[in-house]
């Protein structure tokens, strides 16, 4: 009897464990010799990026497979070296892509060259997943001639504690896109520029009268992930005069944050936005499709939306009439002069950074390829089909002339913009911001949601002492 009892427990334990064990392994990095594998006559490098042919960021993926790889391989061949370069594409949301890279780097495997969001540099460096470029590739990294062409602010995307961890590819800015055709039907001007949140709401109410149209898409909720923070909460917060992290403190649910939530509440409780869309697992993709189909009046997004989403040729939600029908405007502050730094209009910026995997077997060759990808010729090739703001001044001077939106962003938006704090806690804070908007969209009052947010924030950042609720 005793025996069978023990056996029963053991059997139950085995079954239970088989179901749930969460395994892990320790991280950390060893300082590798930058010259290891430098003399190889025959080597393979892998490039990873959240881009895939025929899907997300297809232009980037095609640029790598059709231009970068063949030309780099040919240049090596001319030197008598056999190089093989493999592209490892993904076409997923940013969060799972980040998880995948973290796990790759933690287990000291993964691609030799990878593209990451600039905001991840700090936390990856702190975790020991990334090492300064000069440690991985040696002195040639700092001697690269391209640095002279990249502005300090943009280099900042790839810098952590004064050290460069990669080469930024470009930067971006956020605007309000609007459908001019719907604006005409609602009696709104084709050349629209709101100067306050009231202007935005007024336009929304006019659009509401057009049947079958969702007036405003302002990303909200947790399903949209970082898009909610980047396209919604953070620019609005800047418009209410606050930054999420300033003077060593995180911004809690004070006056500015309540104003932001009140705008969300006004939009989603007054029927100016579609609350269900913010909850759906694929809501952001759907909002893109609806805008492209002429069913959304105003949508806040980065220049990515123009280049890669509604692009008539290569977008994921192609909008053939983009150039005629889509207008863009600066995101207004709550009232003129009330934004951060006394601005009347605001934006947020970020950008991708290409980094080297410290565990690469061929750091010299990997850096050579990285520098090649960031040469003026390759930047021009990358942006030939769909221009975008690159990190290089020399390239921007040539390519932005032809594109009105990007000239607008480079000229009008970037001077107003702000960046997110490169701190490992940021993603959790960002998730708390998203939850606060989700609460408002599903019916909680802004005050209640703000109080919950403050409580959650204090838990994340280690107490009320690190939170500013002024």
């Amino acid at each position: 009897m005793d025996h069978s009892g023990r056996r029963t427990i053991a059997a139950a334990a085995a079954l239970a464990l088989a179901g749930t064990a969460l395994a892990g392994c320790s991280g950390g990095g060893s300082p590798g010799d930058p010259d290891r594998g430098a003399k190889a006559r025959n080597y393979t490098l892998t490039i990873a990026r959240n881009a895939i042919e025929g899907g997300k960021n297809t232009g980037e993926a095609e640029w790598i497979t059709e231009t970068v790889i063949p030309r780099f391989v040919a240049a090596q061949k001319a030197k008598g070296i056999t190089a093989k370069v493999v592209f490892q594409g993904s076409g997923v949301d940013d969060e799972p892509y980040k998880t995948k890279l973290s796990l790759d780097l933690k287990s000291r495997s993964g691609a030799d060259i990878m593209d990451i969001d600039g905001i991840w540099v700090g936390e990856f460096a702190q975790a020991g997943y990334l090492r300064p470029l000069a440690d991985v590739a040696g002195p040639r990294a700092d001697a690269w001639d391209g640095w002279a062409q990249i502005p300090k602010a943009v280099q900042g995307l790839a810098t952590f504690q004064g050290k460069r961890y990669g080469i930024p590819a470009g930067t971006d800015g956020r605007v309000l896109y609007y459908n001019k055709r719907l604006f005409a039907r609602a009696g709104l001007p084709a050349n629209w520029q709101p100067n306050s949140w009231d202007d935005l709401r007024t336009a929304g109410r006019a659009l509401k009268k057009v049947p079958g149209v969702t007036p405003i898409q302002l990303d909200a909720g947790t399903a949209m992930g970082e898009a909610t923070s980047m396209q919604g909460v953070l620019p609005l917060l800047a418009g209410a005069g606050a930054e999420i992290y300033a003077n060593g403190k995180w911004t809690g649910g004070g006056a500015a944050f309540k104003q932001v939530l009140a705008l969300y509440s006004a939009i989603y409780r007054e029927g100016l936005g579609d609350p269900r869309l913010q909850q759906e697992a694929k809501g952001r993709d759907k909002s893109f499709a609806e805008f492209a189909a002429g069913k959304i009046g105003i949508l806040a997004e980065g220049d990515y939306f123009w280049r890669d989403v509604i692009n008539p040729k290569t977008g994921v939600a192609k909008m053939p009439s983009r150039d005629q029908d889509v207008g863009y405007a600066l995101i207004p502050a709550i009232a003129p002069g009330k934004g951060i730094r006394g601005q009347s209009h605001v934006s947020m910026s970020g950008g991708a950074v290409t980094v080297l995997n410290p565990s690469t077997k061929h750091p010299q060759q990997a850096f050579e390829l990285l520098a090649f990808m960031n040469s003026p010729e390759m930047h021009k090739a990358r942006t030939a089909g769909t221009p975008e703001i690159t990190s290089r001044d020399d390239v921007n001077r040539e390519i932005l002339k032809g594109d009105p939106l990007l000239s607008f962003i480079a000229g009008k938006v970037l001077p107003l913009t702000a960046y997110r704090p490169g701190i490992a806690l940021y993603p959790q804070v960002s998730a708390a911001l998203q939850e606060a908007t989700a609460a408002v969209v599903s019916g909680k009052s802004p005050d209640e949601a703000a109080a919950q947010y403050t409580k959650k924030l204090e838990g994340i950042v280690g107490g009320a002492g690190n939170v500013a609720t002024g």
Partner: protein
Amino acid sequence: MAPATSPPAETGSAVLGRRGAAAFVAPALVLIAVFLVFPALWTLYLGVTDYRLTGVAAARPRFVGAENYTGVLGDGEFHHSLWLTLQFVGGSAIAGQTVLGFALAWVLRDRAGPVKRLVEGLVLLAWILPGSVIAFLWIALLDRDAGTLNALLGTPGTAWLLDHPLACVIVFNVWRGTAFSMMLYGAALGNVPPSHLETARLAGATTWQTLRDAVFPRIRGHVLTSLLLVSLWTFNDFTPFLITAGGPDHRSEILAVYVYRTALGDGRLGFGAAISLVMILVNLVIALGYLRALRERRPA
């Protein structure tokens, strides 16, 4: 001294000796140690650290004592998720898969020919298709704007996945997993002697009486084994994530999804490990309950 006619289980150890027996068991024990015991202890260890996926705590995790465990037990999101999981297991594994699987097996038990093959084929198809493919089909079925279900019912714009997320994943899981129960019960019903059923029929027993008095006593072990396996699988199932991603607003965030979100989404590996350990304990309780019930059927 053991007589030559004693049961083989007892002579076995005498013939092999302790060492021989240990040598035979050793490979299995090593496998269990490497793949079950070590990960479980590792999970226990991670649960007492502030280990994270990125940032400083990824390189140098600190010991935080029972903080994660008390955090999990006091976490409203965990309670919510546990409750959802119990509903998910109760609705889809016990009420859904087991009852439906048995009903199908019972109805089809002495049928032959194309109808039986067709039904079995369809049920099995739901089981053998890859989860990602199926999830895509279900999203297409339940979509708010262009979903097949809305087209069939004439209810355009009904957001099934938003209004009834948990019910959707329960129905999905019933559809997905019924095949296993059906096959197991199909085989079990073969063990019921036809003479018993015939006798019950001649005695004028209703279907319910036949099931209760002639069938269930014979297949009790199969029922409990099936319930045990299906409950544990369902408890740890991650597939609903592919359909609802735990949303909206965590309303379909069962424990497997909750662990994934905290450990990999938020990067809180230490906290995620603590949740996993609590899940292991819940699984243990479930498994113990069934195994006890299974043992009771043996004559005392």
